[in-house]
């Protein structure tokens, strides 16, 4: 019994999510470039493309709902669909964070440029890499790649904490630059949220591939730095 229609629908769902991932990743990259290059045009593109991400989210949910209602998927297929719906929601939130960054940058561009003692560009590079690798782990169905993303989240958290301390100090010492420092601090917070969504996506990939729930450091062995680690697979996964 080959469920051709079902397999086609699953492939369609996968492709739609990958397109959605591409849109969200592009939005973050554009927003970050908008920050580092004070580029109004890129920020405007992020705002304009948000509706594409929102429409993609609805399409994916509709298709997942349709498959659940008509195909009664089980095991790895069921886990795949549940993971897709959750990744879908995370990607939409990634798009929202990109919009927040873009709006913040558009405010900053109107203010005089100042040199702030914080490397938002480095943080943006790390966060973009997390999003990209989380999506790669989904494309390849590899829990090890997803696990690597979980470990990167702590690096971004530290960057956010450092940025917070540095920028608060700047506000105290250079009150004339408070607005710019505050904008940079909010961008750092938005980037850290994007990293959290990349982490969620990776956890969902692990759930799909291995059936293991590693959220909130649960259900698996905790590795160094209290990072939930991928358990050894008990059987070869068929993937989808």
């Amino acid at each position, binding site marked *: *019994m*080959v*469920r051709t229609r*079902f397999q086609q629908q699953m492939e369609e769902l996968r492709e739609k999510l990958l397109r959605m991932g591409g849109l969200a990743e592009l939005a973050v990259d554009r927003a970050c470039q908008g920050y580092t290059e004070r580029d109004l045009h890129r920020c405007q593109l992020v705002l304009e493309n948000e509706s594409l991400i929102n429409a993609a989210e609805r399409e994916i949910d509709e298709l997942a709902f349709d498959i659940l209602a008509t195909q*009664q*998927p*089980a*095991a*790895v*297929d*069921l*886990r795949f669909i549940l993971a897709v719906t959750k990744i879908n929601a995370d990607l939409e939130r990634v798009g929202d964070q990109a919009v927040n960054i873009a709006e913040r940058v558009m405010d900053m561009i109107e203010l005089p440029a100042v040199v702030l003692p914080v490397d938002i560009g480095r943080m943006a590079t790390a966060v973009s890499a997390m999003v990209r690798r989380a999506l790669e782990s989904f494309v390849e169905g590899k829990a090890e790649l997803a696990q690597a993303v979980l470990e990167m989240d702590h690096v971004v958290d530290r960057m956010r904490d450092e940025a917070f301390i540095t920028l608060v100090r700047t506000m105290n010492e250079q009150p004339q630059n408070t607005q710019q420092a505050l904008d940079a601090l909010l961008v750092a917070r938005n980037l850290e949220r994007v990293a959290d969504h990349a982490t969620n996506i990776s956890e969902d990939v692990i759930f799909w591939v291995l*059936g293991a729930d590693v959220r909130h450091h649960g259900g698996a062995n905790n590795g160094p730095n209290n990072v939930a680690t991928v358990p050894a697979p*008990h*059987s*070869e996964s*068929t993937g989808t």
Partner: protein
Amino acid sequence: MGVGITVERLNAFYGKTQALFDININVQANHATALIGPSGCGKSTFIRCLNRMHETIPESRVEGNVRIGEFNVYNGTSATELRRRVGMVFQKPNPFPTMSIYDNVAAGLKLNGFRNRKKVDEVVEKSLRSSALFEEVKDSLHKKSGASLSGGQQQRLCIARALAVQPEVLLMDEPCSALDPISTGKIEELIFQLKEQYTIVIVTHNMQQAARVAEFTGFFLLGKMIEFDKTEKVFTNPSDKRTEDYVTGRFG
């Protein structure tokens, strides 16, 4: 109350053809256990070994141990006594066609020597209530024959007939395969209630049915028990790739 079933190194043969290979399983008392697998995998043969129906086929034989509670099935015990303890419901409802509804349910009791009319009346009503049929037939218990009922009602009549002799175990071999979704829903609801009092083993081709009614599921393939685990595990994250391929529809 239901009792557990212990099966050890069970092998079953049709002549020289081996149908089951070294099956080991512990069925928990007062739970529903579903057996799934493609046609010809041995699941029906397996449950027919639990009440010694397999040996009714010429040239067939069974090796290994089966215990229903403390009752040893293959140790010189009476098949009649065994089948009082182990009721069975088949794919196609098989009421005695010329008997009334009442007599269908009372048949097993009479075979077992029940003669007290008042007591038989009580058991017939209780069995029909347990099979969720009493309200639908209470006014025609003696007037209508078993064969005059709908397919779903006939299957519930067969369940009532099986329950009347107070078994410990109820075997169900694809009990809903000939029924419409409404009747299927009623039988599934019934299974859910009956497992409080009986141990239920159900063979089904409908995997969603297994997922809905059973706490444990066993997957058979080519006469072997490939996997036996909690139902949610089998249907969400099975341990064996062959199980996963079957429940996801990649073969079978």
